[in-house]
């Protein structure tokens, strides 16, 4: 048990360190991009015809505190998060980041996790069928659909569906809510409205993820099916579905659970592009804006911080779950049997 606590604590510490390092890397990488957020903000103004000088930019930098050295800015930012739970102000949107992200990050997470569940719900049974079916053509057909999911870029799928919907239904399918539900509190009608639109990003993201998970499950199943312990079980007279589920399927589940955090990250990485195209009002689209368009360190940092925290947390939990369910790891962690 001592070993288990030690294991948990080490993992938790490592998780915090990862979180800190990721934030530092994001913050410093954005430092190297030419022109800071003050300049980008004024550049927006300039495209509107406002006459802006270098002095205006310096004044804006001072107002936003961007004239302070990097170390001061980073440490005050990170300490505000740790001590007060405050992410500060978004430079480009001029509003409180906590306020801005309060609903949006959860929406992003909801979309990603739904897409993830959707993909596992399909990938695991279909992967098992694909690996064990006697019919070569079924296996090939399943393989084809899943490779299509990997091969087609998300944004292209989204654009194609949008074009189709525009031509045949006169609806561009953009946004997460209809206009009347955009800024109202959650209700059952709002959930319905959300689902009537959110299926598109969930489907687009899920298809791609399904393809990956399916290939993983299929490969693992094929690997495991030939192993000696399966043969031994077969020799003991277990066969059919019960053999599959009890031995190879159970063992191939380990790597799948292990890759939960990784898959979530992959889906979240794909989300911003899809979100930009579908005009989703969640944090993925904001992340692209903040990173690529406005160099808004605080906002990009906050989103990546939250995302990393989620992934680190998921990884931490899966590590613990695996330690509990997988005897091989349990043995390593706890010592003895």
């Amino acid at each position, binding site marked *: 048990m001592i070993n288990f606590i030690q294991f948990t604590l080490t993992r938790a510490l490592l998780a915090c360190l990862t979180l800190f390092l990721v934030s530092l890397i994001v913050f410093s990488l954005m430092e190297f*991009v*030419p*022109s800071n957020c003050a*300049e*980008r*903000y004024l*550049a*927006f*103004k*300039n*495209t*509107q*015809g*406002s*006459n*802006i*000088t*270098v*002095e*205006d*930019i310096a*004044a804006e930098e*001072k*107002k936003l505190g961007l004239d302070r050295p990097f170390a001061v800015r980073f440490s005050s930012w990170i300490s505000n998060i740790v001590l007060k739970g405050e992410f500060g102000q978004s430079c480009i*949107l*001029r*509003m409180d980041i906590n*306020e*801005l992200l309060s609903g949006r990050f959860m929406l992003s997470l909801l979309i990603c996790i739904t897409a993830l569940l959707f993909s596992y719900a399909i990938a695991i049974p279909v992967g098992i069928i694909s690996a064990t079916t006697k019919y070569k053509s079924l296996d090939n057909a399943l393989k084809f659909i899943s490779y299509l999911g990997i091969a087609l870029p998300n944004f292209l799928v989204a654009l194609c569906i*949008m*074009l189709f919907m*525009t031509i045949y239904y*006169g609806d*561009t399918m*953009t*946004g997460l809510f209809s*206009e009347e539900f*955009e*800024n109202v509190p959650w209700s059952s009608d709002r959930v319905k409205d959300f689902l009537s639109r959110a299926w598109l990003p969930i489907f687009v993201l899920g298809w791609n993820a399904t393809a990956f998970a399916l290939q993983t499950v299929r490969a693992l199943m094929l690997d495991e099916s030939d192993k000696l312990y399966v043969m031994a079980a077969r020799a003991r007279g277990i066969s059919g579905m019960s053999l599959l589920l009890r031995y190879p399927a159970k063992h191939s589940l380990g790597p799948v659970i292990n890759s939960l955090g990784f898959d979530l990250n992959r889906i979240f990485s794909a989300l911003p592009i899809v979100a*930009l*195209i579908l*005009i989703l*009002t969640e944090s993925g689209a904001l992340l692209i*804006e903040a990173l690529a*368009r406005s*160099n808004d360190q605080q906002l990009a940092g906050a989103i990546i911080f939250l995302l990393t925290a989620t992934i680190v947390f998921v990884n931490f939990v899966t590590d613990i779950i695996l330690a509990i369910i997988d005897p091989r790891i349990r043995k390593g962690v706890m010592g003895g049997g």
Partner: protein
Amino acid sequence: MYLLNYRLKIIYYLIYLGGKSMFKKLFLTLIFSFSALTMSFNAIAADCSGKKVDGGAFPMQFELSEYESLAGCTMSFKENPNVASINATIRGNGELGSVESRLPDEPLVISPYDSIGSYGGTFKMLSNATEAGTSDLLSTRHVNFVRFSDDLQQIVPNIAKSYEWNDDYTQLTFVLRKGHKWSDGAPFTAEDVKFWYDHLMMDSNIREKPYGYLLVGGERMTVDIIDPQTVVFNLPAPKPGLTAMFANSYCQGFAPKHHLGQFHPDINSGADALAQAAGYENGYDVLKAYYGNSCWTDTPSPLLATPDKVANLPSDVYPSLESFITIEDTTEGRKYAANPYFHMVDTAGNQLPYIDYQNERYINENEIRILKLVNGEVDYKAQSLNLESVPQLMDGSEAGEYNVQIKPGVGSAAFSLNLTHPDEAKRGLFRDLRFRQAMSVAINRNEINDVIHYGLGTPQQYIGFSPRPDFVDAKWSQHYAQYDPDLANSLLDETGAVDRNGDGFRELPNGEPLVLNIDFATQGIGGGEVELVARYWNEVGVKTNFKEITPDEYRSSQSANELDVGAWKKGMPLALIMGEGKLFVPPYEDYFAHRNAMLWSEYIDSNGDSGVQPPGYAYEMIEDIAAFQASPIGSEENKRLGEKLVATMTGNLLFIGTVAPPFPVYHRNVLGNFTEFTTASYEYYRTYPYLPQQWYFSN
């Protein structure tokens, strides 16, 4: 073949439009002559019913008494039947009085372009983000003292009833409308103008440094109140361009003193206490939330910036004189309600605007915006639409029930050679006028026009003023703008940049390799155009590479004086140049655009301590532009100096212009009273000259 097809389509379309407007003219002439006939028989004053009359002081608009006497009628006022429910959406507004009590004593009478409109509907619009790509919609609700009329020549009254300059252009007097009210019903007076200038624009707590266009030669003006309806701007030096500034600037020259003043410590000693009671740090904090420290009206309102505290404030946004006022503000978009106190009526006495609400959505992806336009989900759009999208838009115009006008823009793409290049050998070559002339005639502008702009653009040289004012000889627009590779080659030979090693490319006069790198950003110039120009320059033996970079990288290389070639769009109309001289002063334009003489400006700023000494003509232009701005538009002195500026700028080919492209203007067919635009450009503030207040939804 594909492109050609579309080109034909556009040309047919243009012919169709031309035909339509001829028909319209004929029709209008008939109507006019008919109404003139009836007027002479109709001496008894009847109720005004929207009769079109001629002979007003300004096109399309009248003062009330002027209209009544011209049309021989008395006007009674009518209101939007939904006005009470619209008013209820404006938090902080009380019960409404009658329409007569809400309008100024002398409302501005607008003659609708086609017909008297009907009330109702929501105007749908797209912007890019809270403060990006918003000027298009801003212009539909914008007001200022004056505006440009739709011919873009005449400056006509709007908020001001009239304006007057003194003889030497050092005193500008605005007469306001008696009984004019803010959107909350409080009176609008000269006090609001002085408050805006003295306590917002010139207060370093609001604007650390005042906007240059609100100063005269770097010095501030003084604002004097003569009476509640008369306000005078006293200028330290002549600046006739100030009226043009008020006509096309987004910066509105007034702010509600009765409202914002209560949070300003100079106006109300209890401002900070009042602000703290609402949960803000101090009065300036509230002003920042309301006013955004900017006279643009697209800055985040307290609804967006401080949603947790907005309920403690007297209203969601500060009162306005615009035709619409913000009622919702989120990161997805904004909604606006018609101002129940707006100062315009149509010729039948109906208070404007006709439309009830505006709905602005933010979409930052051009392709998605186009999709929404094709789908007919937007009522009007011009900003950030380019010729490239026209075939796609034209294709869907019938099904989407919309119309696309193709109108000239202001300005064109331009290239420049870095006149103060850090490499002395290159600098020497770039400063040789023959080299710049050669690079200009090496460009095949007609081909650029055909390939990039479907043949709809105008091949031309850059002359400083865009478009060319009448007082400038037309020859300058074609100065060294012909395609003549032989001339280019012989001019290049004369400069000493000849091919010494036989590799097909010329070397610098000192024998070192000559390579031009065009780093460009698509925000400033199209990639296709750069590619063609690079090809033309290579064809005359000047090795030219090109590479796309981000606008930020472009700005930073330009600031560091690292560019060989500047490539950015360029253009400013006469009216703006009257108030802003940067195009004629080194480094020629500002941080965000085209600068090709960084070290000249350093030399001037440091009084010769560092930088590179500019040639005599650069100093001449600095003097000429100052004298030009101090002389009234239309005077002989003004014309002479203008012509001289063009001769210096173009004669020295400081910038090489290529083709002025036109731009599309999109509007749905149901939008009534939508007139033909004269240009599609920001420079005259987009829709502001074309009376968007009288747009309505026809069924």
